[in-house]
């Protein structure tokens, strides 16, 4: 078939290839998204608790199916236990997020959100971001969620478990679940389609190759005191400072070997245990790459504090008599002082 337009030919070729190899595979992720959306819709509607929990289980199963379709198998992870923990934490996060938006009582929603935060912290540990995992648990689960709990207990009238009708109507009846789930379904299709296409490294120029872990050695050179101390611990006879090349790097990397060279030509191999820890790396990146953003974050927090204090302040209405009394009280007090 001779087609002059190259663009048309490209489309036809890709279509033909798809039909021959895996025509159905293209649509499976979207079917998973559709299952997820339908189960979510059923879980959102007011119905008995068993139906809701069952529908949430179906939605979680659809999410797991989608994950399996996208990620492939557990062997894509560094080791098998990491894959198992990934599945546990991610399904736990998704299930509690679903229960959070379907639960009638806001307090339980907040508690399920704590579970989401903890599962997310587990995912962060798997991603070797220990500092962020602990910061998340401390700041989110420990501080922000407690603030939410306070306001919920302040604002919500007490309800008993035995009488579900005492729950306010705006907590029991969802607003436009069909439209919301349709929006969610479209968004999920968009996201999964983008992720599936975007992480396919067989398409050239799509996603950069995985980063080089040895780039982390560059941070050690900036932490000069720690660098010198650790080299002295490793080899007390090493003549500090090491020679640096034209680019100013004193740590040389050849393949998997990392070493420094002294003035007298002797080399010292650096073990992997000398690499800066995750927290050090994050701290270095924070103050070195984002100094202005760090200051701005401080300003944002200060403004939020002022704003919250001013907005939530209770204005006290004073009548003429009270005003006069206060003023007179002030006057008499100042007279006492003098």
């Amino acid at each position, binding site marked *: 078939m001779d087609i002059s337009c190259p663009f048309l030919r490209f489309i036809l070729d890709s279509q033909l290839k798809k039909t021959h190899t895996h025509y159905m595979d293209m649509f499976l992720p979207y079917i998973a998204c559709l299952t997820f959306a339908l189960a979510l819709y059923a879980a959102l509607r007011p119905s008995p608790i068993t139906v809701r929990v069952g529908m949430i289980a179906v939605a979680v199963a659809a999410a797991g199916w989608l994950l399996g379709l996208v990620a492939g198998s557990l062997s894509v992870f560094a080791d098998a236990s990491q894959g198992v923990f990934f599945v546990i934490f991610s399904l736990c996060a998704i299930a509690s997020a679903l229960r959070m938006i379907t639960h009638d009582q806001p307090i339980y929603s907040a508690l399920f959100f704590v579970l989401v935060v903890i599962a997310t912290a587990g995912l962060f540990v798997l991603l070797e971001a220990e500092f962020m995992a602990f910061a998340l648990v401390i700041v989110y689960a420990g501080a922000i969620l407690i603030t939410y709990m306070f306001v919920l207990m302040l604002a919500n009238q007490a309800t008993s478990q035995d009488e579900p009708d005492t729950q*306010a109507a705006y907590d029991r009846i969802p607003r436009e679940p069909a439209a919301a789930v349709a929006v969610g379904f479209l968004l999920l299709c968009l996201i999964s389609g983008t992720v599936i296409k975007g992480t396919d490294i067989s398409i050239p120029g799509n996603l950069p190759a995985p980063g080089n872990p040895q780039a982390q050695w560059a941070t050690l050179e900036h932490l000069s005191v720690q660098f010198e101390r650790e080299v002295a611990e490793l080899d007390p006879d090493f003549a500090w400072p090491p020679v640096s090349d034209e680019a100013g790097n004193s740590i040389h990397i050849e393949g998997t070997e990392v070493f420094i060279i002294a003035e007298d030509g002797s080399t010292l191999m650096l073990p992997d245990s000398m690499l800066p820890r995750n927290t050090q790396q994050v701290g270095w990146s924070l103050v070195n790459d984002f100094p202005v953003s760090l200051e701005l*974050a401080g300003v944002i927090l200060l403004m939020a504090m002022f704003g919250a204090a001013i907005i939530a302040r209770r204005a006290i209405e004073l009548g003429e008599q009270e005003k006069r009394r206060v003023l007179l009280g002030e006057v008499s007090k100042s007279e006492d002082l003098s």
Partner: protein
Amino acid sequence: MMTSSALAGYLIVSGLLLVIGVVGFLVRRNLIVMFLCTELMFQGAAIAFIAMGRYLFDYSGQVMVIFILTVAAAEAALALALVVLMHRQGDSLDADAFSELTE
């Protein structure tokens, strides 16, 4: 070393959390739960940032999550102050009750 398929798995989890947050924000009528759903969306964004940062060995991803935490804390403080104020005026947490903010 992290494979691109593992990265895809983490990105899908983050996308699912984001979508659940969006749906919850649209569906729920309780103001406080609506703000909780925005926090859920922040969680999804944070997972995407950290997974990408781990894949590329770039620690900027984790720094971005620090900023997300900052913004989430500021947002929680301001939003909850507003909710307390509105609850004092209207004695309800229904978002529809505040569709007209004029006196």
